[in-house]
């Protein structure tokens, strides 16, 4: 069969590198800056994941179709994250809404409405 596998020696070297990276990520957790901390942690995790994928999972011997399949999930995930966060990152700041006269009046308006139409605010749903 044409399939190749990683040699034992490479396996041990990669494992050593993974342990070093593990120690690095724990040390890097001391970074006080929240954003920088995330970036460093994710970078180290990505390098570890790539080492596992390329060496342990033998992707370096794989054909282009397999490599495409490897990439597909991660590309899909990036699409999900990017477009979803495009919503969260650009939502109107809530403090503007909360300080607007309409929002401030909302609880009173609800109470008045509940007095007028108690049936609409009755708890529980009949089945």
């Amino acid at each position, binding site marked *: 069969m044409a399939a190749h596998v990683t040699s034992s020696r490479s396996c041990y070297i990669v494992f050593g590198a993974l342990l070093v990276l593990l120690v690095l990520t724990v040390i890097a957790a001391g970074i006080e800056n929240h954003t920088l901390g995330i970036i460093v942690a994710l970078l180290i995790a990505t390098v570890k994941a790539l080492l596992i994928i390329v060496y342990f999972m033998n992707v370096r011997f794989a054909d282009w*179709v397999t490599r495409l399949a490897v990439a*597909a*999930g991660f590309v*899909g995930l990036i*699409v*999900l994250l990017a*477009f*979803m966060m*495009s*919503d*969260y*990152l*650009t*939502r*109107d700041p809530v403090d503007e809404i909360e300080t607007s006269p309409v929002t401030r009046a909302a609880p009173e308006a609800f109470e008045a409405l509940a007095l007028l139409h108690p049936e609409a605010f009755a708890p529980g*749903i*009949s*089945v």
Partner: protein
Amino acid sequence: MTTELLAPPERNYLSAGYTARSWLLTVDHKRIAILYMVSITLFFFVGGAAAVLFRLELMTPEGDLVISETYNKLFTLHGIVMIFLFLIPAVPAVLGNFLVPLMIGARDLAFPRINLLSWYLFMLGGALVMWSTFVGGVDTGWTFYTPYSSTYANTNVMLAALGAFVTGFSSILTGLNFIVTVHTMRAPGLRWFRLPLFIWAHYATSLIMILGTPVVAAAIFLVALERGLGIGIFDPKLGGDPLLFQHLFWFYSHPAVYIMVLPSMGVVSEIIACFSRKRIFGYRFVAMSSMAIAVIGFFVWGHHMFVSGQSVYAGLVFSFLSMLVAIPSAIKVFNWTATMHKGHVWLSTPMLYALGFIGLFTMGGLTGLFLATVAVDVHVHDTYFVVAHFHYIMVGGSVMGYLGGLHFWWPKITGRMYPEWWGRFSAVLVFFGFNLTFFPQFVVGYLGMPRRYHTYPEEFQIYNVMSTAGASILGVAYLIPLIYFIWSLKYGPRATANPWDARGLEWEAASPPITQNFETTPIVTTDAYPYAEDEQRTEETLLV
């Protein structure tokens, strides 16, 4: 035609075994396709029965047939059954399962046992949904929106959601099987751009199945955690965001529309080429437009959330990207039309369905552009305009494609011909019934009738009566094929291996095919749809 050709092969896949065991433990992709066909037909009539009940209710403005809770459960049942248990498996799991190996000259799918497992998962999911119905129903709508589904609904949300979750895995396994099969098991000489467009469409569909379905599964998993174990993920009381559910849900459920319609587009490409006696116009563009729809389909889900509290800036991006889907869709429509141009168009039953598909899909697609425009969507969101739009895509598109494909390959699947006159009659009837049902809903929706209510103002009654009348015609039009298909199993004339004189490897196999599909592995030397070069012979041998 010689008489030897008319006799079916003695040992075909249907005669390989007659016991229940030979069906329930089969790993033959053709038999599994039949299992799927029977199951989704049953589910189709369950979903249809729910539609009959609420269409009757909607004949009058008052809520006189069912109370609002029952009405909510009816449209939820209709949605869940029709989408998860009928439309998503319809073309891929029935026609795709049967034809993908045949069309690429393989003996089976890459993983036959996983294929059977996927049917069992499908049936388990279906059983859970049916169970949830029998013990009282679900009223969340098929979308399971939080926090209603996770906190407030007092109905059997868990069972139904679990059903959707399990059928999702069935769909993942089908997609996985198709992709691996197309990559590894093509016949010698069958290069990528020699593949039938049906295969391209199924390949694109499979991409959506494997990348989209896990996300909705995760969303349902989180709802189940919240509802079952009280672990709040979307709970606003903890600061959770119910919109997060909608993001995860629509990341799958918008592309899921393309799971429903892309395979039907593949069917239509096959039918149009055959009954216009021409190679499909712009083959590579049609193939690539399937892939483009699958990819762009993942970039547009936010157009379901324009009025849900999503950021307006994200809304603008999603609106723009949604417009892009129109490009590959239009490429397909124009290329089908161009294929028919100066072709020898033969209005057989499958062709009538394919033409119906083009017309109705175009309507559905164009009204989709209305809905992708933020300002217009604010006006028509959650009205019957939306209902009409997606029925034009899902029923006018997917179901027409499924029925067209079923007629086209019925001789191959069963070895029998269906009655052509009845076929054409019901195809035309479906088209008229469908338009009478759903066109008035565009009007009444634009006038402001909201969806999901069982009562409505009196001035909307005329449109609803038209809709219900159309639905009755549509119901009859769906029953007619069911009757003559069953009739044809015993009384239909024997089909030859290639009754339409079509091109493609599946027509080189016997009707019905032998279990191994081909006596010897075929070798492909031409591009797909080599119709034109032997036009003369074609004219002479056509039977009708």
